């Protein structure tokens, strides 16, 4: 059938990861400069840094949207290929290269939807065709 591809009927492969919080000065600046409802703040908050091996396993590339689901909630964010831990000379010597199975997300309401942070959260990540939801779409009863 023209226009229909077989992979449309297959579930996107997923991967168990641990989501860990990090602080991003540019995101903090955007919250103060443009406000927490701004696109600038949302763009810097809805990001997950994934190890290249994890990106490959879920069939995603740098900049693709991914769905992250924990027992507390689900969010859609942009996947970024992590620089990994290999850049740092000391780390490389100590053998801490890459971080497969671990995703890093900036501290924000999108991360907190997944569970209590900064304690690491167990979640599943998979490629997504959905859009990134705004704060008001994520939280029931929320009025802007």
């Amino acid at each position, binding site marked *: 059938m023209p226009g229909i591809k077989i992979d449309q009927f297959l579930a996107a492969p997923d991967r168990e990861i641990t989501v860990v919080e990090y602080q991003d*000065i540019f995101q903090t600046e955007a919250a103060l400069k443009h406000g927490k409802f701004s696109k600038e703040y949302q763009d810097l908050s809805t990001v997950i840094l994934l190890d290249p091996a994890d990106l490959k396993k879920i069939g995603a590339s740098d900049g693709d949207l991914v769905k992250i689901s924990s027992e507390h909630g689900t969010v859609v964010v942009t996947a970024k290929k992590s620089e990994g831990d290999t850049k740092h000379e000391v780390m490389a010597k100590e053998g*801490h290269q890459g971080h497969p199975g671990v995703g890093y997300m900036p501290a924000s309401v999108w991360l907190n939807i997944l569970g209590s942070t900064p304690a690491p959260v167990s979640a599943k990540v998979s490629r997504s065709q959905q859009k990134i939801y705004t704060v008001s779409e994520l939280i029931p009863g929320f009025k802007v």
Partner: protein
Amino acid sequence: MTCTGCALLCDDIDVHDGEVRPACRIGAAHILNRHQVDPMVNHEIVSIDDAIGHAATLLTDAKHPMFLGFGNSVTETQEIGVRLAEKIGAGIDTCSSHAHLIDDIIHNRVRTCALSEVRDMADVILFWGADPMNTHPRLLSGYAYYPRGKNRQHGWEEDRTAITIDVRRSHTASICKGMHKIVFGHEAEFVDALMLALQNKVPKTVYDSKQVLKLAGTLKKAEFGVIFAGPGLVESVPHDAIIRLMDRLNEFSDFRILPLHSQYNLRSIAAVKTAATVTTTDVATGATTNNTTNNTTNTTTDAADAREQQGVGTQTSKITLNSLREADCILCVGFDLISSLPQACDIDARIIIIDPNETLTAGCADVVIPCAAGGVDMAGTAVRLDGVEIDLPCIMETGQAGVGMPTDTPTRMSDASIMNRLLEAV
């Protein structure tokens, strides 16, 4: 002028023609912040008087009120807030993971020091669960790593060793001479391994024993060591384990600890609560007690001990949904509840916010009261993260153009005035 963008309280700030120098990104954005909200009741814009009046009614009618935040308020506001809490029987929770450590520092359970001592004397600096390059950008250049100090004339090149202990390679780790990666679920195990290594015992652990022994060797040789404790340490390691580690380190060298929290006046609220006559409610248990002390150091220590014996704490490390369900009215002062706990939008409690900034909590709040920002358009005092009290002059007068500031700044009432009005009304 002083920047209240973080707990470093940099006091060399100059504002000219709308530019803030030499503040960091956070400080400049904080001082020039124009994202303010209107006073609102039930999502309708009202006058500030109506908003305060409605808030007073909600607080008066509340049976289990709870106050959250105060870490981003000047000391004067905190004092009035504690009196208001006492008057209506509300509990106060700073919602900070650093609360226990600050309590330990205030009550001399761990050794601490001033930031000037770090600059002048520190030769081994640990950033543990902390990433100051993203949270306190001027810490490294002002005190902890780069500057030439009195006894550290060769600065970071020769005189200082900075080490990061964290779950990830942070930006701060990229400039440090060493990095130890924490394994999830084994955070306290790293402390135990280090304690053993300090005694020259080889730890059996998930961590590389050689690297832990090497770290212990570096720490033992320190003339003046400092641990900057970030959320990654205080959230994952029990505070008594931190005390034991500090005691062990001080058997071999001179080690101090400093909390690296973001709220600019968190250190003060712990002292204000301890020093006052406070009715405290533990949000986790709902238990209530009265503690009466005076302002001397000795009696505040006694009060803290008494609270511990009664099993009633004034500090909780993390706000949880269950703990909030006990409350029927929540007053957030400089604290964005919904950003930290989005599920709180569903709880059956009235929410009042007093905040200089636009927050996500405004989307769920019954009453929104905008206020002036401490150190920006409101003067006051604050306590830096090392315990030094700092005066906060106004960068701009409320409703007027300050030094080099734009003229479109709206008039904002100080949070101290708002708390005073509530205190009179309830």
